[in-house]
């Protein structure tokens, strides 16, 4: 793989693989190449694949940071701030090397658009930085349109061990395509709020979320997230909005709609500096939620976040 370089460019290849043996061979070679060059290396992939790489590396695994992507990257929207930039920013000198596998066969239909947008936005987040991120895709299990999207979100692709330029690379197109309308849910409880009703909007969402089974820290997280989104509506989104809450496939979903438009595609995906005053609201929503979906147009914005009921998996959050 020709992923080694000495200049400061961002390198972001997709790795298409067809077997566990091929996966192990290519990822282990990629990690060893980085270690040999003295680069800090992190691996963030689903648990079983983590074990393949760990076993393949043997004692070299000691020098690598491992993260289970199904936990650290459960919500694709927090992978850039909580996983990729967290590691890259902690190693500011020289090139940093990461394997990131955010798309796996178990991703739901609600999750996939956020996965594709995340893969696209990596290109914006790391432009001009000496970082190499290899993204494995399982060719035998993933749908054809998922693999087709990977050609649009990655400047190069590695198949059967050879790397080529992707002629279809155009990450902005994927961000736009998956900015999909979020259909209103008929049986959701909805409250309209204005500038004077922020406490009421928050309490409404908490009461509904609790009645749908959310408890403990997850309920507190819902309250914080709704507070941040409704505050954004009042301050930046035209001064008013609606909050809706419903249950969907074992999760509680909260949605805030307003008349504003999100123009910065990386909003909520930049890690906050310690002394920074603002800009943590959407980041908090990404950190605490299992999934965040956004639809934003000239007519308004809908932000929807999902929290699992009773799951311990989703209790994880990046530090």
């Amino acid at each position: 793989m020709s992923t080694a370089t000495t200049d400061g460019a961002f390198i972001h290849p997709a790795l298409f693989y067809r077997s566990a043996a091929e996966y192990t061979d290519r990822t282990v070679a990629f990690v060893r190449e980085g270690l040999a060059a003295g680069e800090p290396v992190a691996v963030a992939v689903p648990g079983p694949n983590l074990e393949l790489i760990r076993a393949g590396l043997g004692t070299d695994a000691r020098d690598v940071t491992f993260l289970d992507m199904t936990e650290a990257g459960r919500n694709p929207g927090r992978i850039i701030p909580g996983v990729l930039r967290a590691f890259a920013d902690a190693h500011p000198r020289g090139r940093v090397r990461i394997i990131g596998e955010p798309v796996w066969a178990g991703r739901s239909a609600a999750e996939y658009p956020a996965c594709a947008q995340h893969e696209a936005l990596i290109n914006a987040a790391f432009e001009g930085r000496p970082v190499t991120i290899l993204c494995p895709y399982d060719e035998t299990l993933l749908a054809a349109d998922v693999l087709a999207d990977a050609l649009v979100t990655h400047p190069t692709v590695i198949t059967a061990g050879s790397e080529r330029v992707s002629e279809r690379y155009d990450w902005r197109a994927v961000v736009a395509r998956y900015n999909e309308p979020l259909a209103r849910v008929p049986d959701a409880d909805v409250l309209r709020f204005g500038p004077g009703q922020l406490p009421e909007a928050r309490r409404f969402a908490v009461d509904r979320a609790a009645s749908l089974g959310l408890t403990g820290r997850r309920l507190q997280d819902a309250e914080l997230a709704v507070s941040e989104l409704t505050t954004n509506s009042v301050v930046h989104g035209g001064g008013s909005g609606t909050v809706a809450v419903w249950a969907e496939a074992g999760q509680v979903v909260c949605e805030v709609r307003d008349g504003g438009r999100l123009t910065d595609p990386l909003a909520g995906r930049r890690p906050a500096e310690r002394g920074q005053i603002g800009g943590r609201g959407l980041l908090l929503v990404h950190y605490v939620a299992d999934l965040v979906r956004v639809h934003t147009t000239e007519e308004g914005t809908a932000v929807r976040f999902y929290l699992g009921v009773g799951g311990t998996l989703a209790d994880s959050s990046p530090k």
Partner: protein
Amino acid sequence: MDGTGAKGDPARARWGALLDVGPLPGRPGIRASGEITVSTRLSWENALTELSRRHTDVSYVELSEVRFVDVAGVTALAVTALNLPVGRVVVERPPPQLPRVLDLFWPSLHRIEVAPR
């Protein structure tokens, strides 16, 4: 210290929530009751500015009567603590959002000590 009303008068802010904040009797620091949100941000930040101006070694922030604090409210406290030249801030009995937000954004901020509810 409230900046929006006479002493002891809860400030009915323009956006719906109430915050009563003032000096802590007998100890250096402040106490607050109500909600710390965008509606009451100014009172909270003014109180923190005053705390920081009078700070010497340890300042106390008593929050047992605060029902909710948002991310910007915790941020204002954290940034105030970060900018203190010496000493620390002890936050007493805060609502659950405060340790949660500190843990997410300032996981090792030694200048703030939290005494839980």
